[in-house]
């Protein structure tokens, strides 16, 4: 750990901190997509252990739409005065 401390000091700490948050964000996004699309697309009576074709194509479209909602709201937040 000490070996990684550079003269730049705090700045590097901040870079690491932001990179960590960024990764946490991506992991959380992936988890939310997985759970949301499972809820929307997969029959939870579990009559078999395979995903059928309808469930698979629903999942593909669901991930695509979720991504678009992420971008759309990102634009709204970026353009507006909202401090998020």
């Amino acid at each position: 750990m000490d070996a990684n401390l550079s003269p730049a000091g705090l700045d590097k700490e901040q870079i690491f901190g932001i990179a960590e948050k960024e990764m946490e964000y991506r992991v959380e996004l992936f988890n939310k997509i997985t759970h949301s699309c499972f809820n929307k697309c997969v029959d939870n009576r579990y009559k078999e252990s395979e995903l059928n074709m309808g469930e698979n194509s629903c999942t593909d479209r669901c991930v695509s739409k979720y991504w678009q909602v992420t971008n759309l709201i990102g634009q709204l937040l970026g353009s507006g005065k909202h401090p998020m």
Partner: protein
Amino acid sequence: MDKSMLADLESLPEADRQRMSAMMEQLQIRDSLRMYNSLVERCFTDCVDTFKHKSLQKQEETCVRRCAEKFLKHSMRVGMRFAELNQGAATQD
């Protein structure tokens, strides 16, 4: 619980206060990203229900925009009330 503790913090030397505010900044970044994630999840859940297409349909997009705007306005209002209550400025009805 925290009032005395926060008072303690104010008596700390400059270097500690800097560390404290760096910590708060990190928490705020994380919190903003989480808020963003949960806003997207909510609006997606409420507005998108059919998966015949790969792209958002016009009415879904309108719904998402309104959802996000409503949520942000709501969130700012809650923030104001929350701040008042944190300052003990709450009054009775």
